[in-house]
């Protein structure tokens, strides 16, 4: 690809589809299992066509039984396969918490390093579609707190494909979080297989005098915020960690040393969210370089509301992000 016009555009949903197809073509040990993923092609449409290509042994419709579904992945991974287990909505992880936290995350450690668990859990998080409190959550912080799990969040189609491929190639359990409000977002996605290395952040937009660290869908909102901030003479750098565990702290620190100010943005509830971890690490590693406290933008401390009138105030957006940057700089929006 040499010119922008030659670059193939793909929406997130098709990037996920292509990643799974290529992974299954590459390795007969890779299979996909989940609720409605085979015949129906998933309620989000990301697995359409896979049943026809790979058959029901490798693209498996399961009962609505999240504990057994994750257990299916744990047992299959422990005996040599590379399962991709789809948990339709991240909210449903609660039903499978034992298998995720007590079994998948701990098997290798508890068994003294003997188990290999190349298990990928794929799921959809995020609000904005009026699906209310049990179909809209961003629960990544739950899993980041559990040693033994890796957690990645895709901010667009390029990331969705590259992170999923890296997750399936990884020999540890990885939770791959996509955001359902981004499924239609199109962007450049290379046709070949590629990995986004776990633990490598991306500077999505280089800038000089403010650092915005954003995850998942908030990367898009932060990019829009950065455009607004230009009008105020602020050249913000936007960084997407992509992988929360392992976390590329070095790239974040390097940026803060340059800009001296930082804001962490995520869609999840702000209180005890992953942003707190990033903020704490930055003040530990770059305190002397900071000219202001590190800010955090996240959802309020409430379940996700249903009414569009309320939900619009729940999910952080570009205006709020830009406003918070201006506030941290002591300027009014």
């Amino acid at each position, binding site marked *: 690809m040499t010119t922008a016009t030659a670059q193939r555009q793909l929406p997130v949903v098709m990037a996920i589809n292509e990643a799974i197809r290529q992974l299954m073509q590459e390795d007969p040990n890779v*299979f996909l299992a989940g609720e409605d993923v085979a015949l129906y092609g998933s309620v989000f449409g990301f697995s359409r066509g896979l049943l026809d290509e790979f058959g029901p*042994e490798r693209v498996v419709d*399961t*009962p609505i*039984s*999240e*504990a*057994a*579904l*994750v*257990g*299916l*992945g*744990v*047992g*299959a*991974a*422990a*005996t*040599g*396969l590379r*399962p991709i287990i789809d948990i339709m909505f991240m909210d449903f992880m609660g039903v499978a918490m*034992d*298998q995720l936290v*007590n*079994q998948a995350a*701990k*098997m*290798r*450690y*508890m*068994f*003294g*390093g*003997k*188990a*290999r*668990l*190349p298990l990928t859990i794929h799921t959809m998080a995020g609000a904005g579609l009026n699906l209310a409190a049990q179909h809209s959550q961003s629960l990544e912080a739950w899993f980041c707190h559990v*040693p*033994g799990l*890796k957690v990645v969040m895709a901010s667009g189609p390029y990331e969705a494909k590259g992170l999923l491929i890296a997750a399936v190639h*990884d*020999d*540890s359990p990885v939770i791959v979080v996509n955001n359902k409000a981004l499924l239609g977002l199109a962007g450049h996605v290379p046709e070949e297989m590629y990995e986004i290395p776990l633990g490598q952040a991306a500077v999505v937009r280089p800038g000089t005098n403010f650092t915005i660290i954003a995850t998942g869908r908030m990367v898009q909102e932060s990019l829009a915020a950065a455009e607004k901030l230009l009008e105020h003479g602020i050249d913000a750098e936007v960084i997407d960690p992509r992988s929360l565990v392992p976390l590329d702290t070095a790239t974040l620190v390097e940026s803060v040393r340059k800009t001296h100010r930082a804001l962490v943005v995520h869609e999840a509830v702000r209180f005890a969210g992953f942003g707190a971890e990033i903020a704490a690490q930055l003040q530990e590693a770059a305190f002397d370089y900071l000219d202001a406290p590190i800010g955090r933008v996240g959802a309020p401390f409430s379940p996700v509301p249903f009414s569009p009138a309320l939900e619009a105030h729940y999910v952080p957006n570009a205006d709020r992000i830009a406003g918070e940057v201006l506030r941290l700089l002591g300027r009014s929006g």
Partner: protein
Amino acid sequence: MTPSPETLLDLHRRMLRIRLFEEEAGRLSEAGRIPGALHLYVGEEAVAAGVAAHLGQGDQVTSTHRGHGHLVAVGGDFRRMFAELFGRATGYCRGKGGSMHIADMDLGMLGANGIVGGGPPIAVGAAFSNKYRKTQNVTACFFGDGASNEGSFHEAANMAGLYRLPLIFVCENNGFGEFTRQDRHQAIRDIADRAAGYGFPGVVVDGMDVIAVYEAAGEAIARARRGEGPTLLECKTYRFYDHVGVRGMGVVYRSDDEVRAWRERDPITLLERRLAELGILDAPGAAAVRDQVHAEVREAVAFAEASPFPDPATLTEDVYAS
């Protein structure tokens, strides 16, 4: 599928290995020489032995809190087992799992489990894997009467029945979920009845009679290997010691008389009587096997106690595959 004399001797040896390992572990625990909690399998040996006698290379087992018996039954190494109980670097889990998480991936023993009902979903995964890879292997999922009340068991049973997985659910019904008697935690008497809800057979067997377990497990495993799907085998058994630790008698939730009555049906004594009747093994012969296993236990304990503790540098190793 009446067992041959060789098989009967094999069953006897498997049970004795479990019993003597466990009794020694119990003594060490009482003496404060091994740390943590110990959930002994004594009394339930016929179940593990009768099932494991049909398992081989490539088959898997998922286990319970009471996992030593299952690991011994599939050929667990006493030295590495005791070393793990002692928390030593030479243990099966390098001192990171202990009694409740003891495992041997090479033997297909996918771990004792500290979570009641944690095993059945994993057994579904292992059985799915066997079917996917088109092996003839089977997975034996051990669980208790208490675990059969967990949602995870029902989800796993439904999935196993739906996919006709090569899996046998082995319920070790010892009459108690921790300290709560079965009639106080379940409205049914035979857990095997639950299989009907998932479209596969449920079989009740005397879990103190290793020959009965061996025969019933043999049929269920053959059925699984033929691709005809799972079976739920309910083995009525009893734990001679407490839920955790040794005590065994004189505790509030069951009477000494009850324990004594069950001990009269000790599965090892029952088999030894049968072996004597059949002229396969007399009392001195049985004593000789016992001595042999005792020596193996003593040697393993000495090895474990002489083994080093893990280096603190290993504390954060193996959280992830490198």
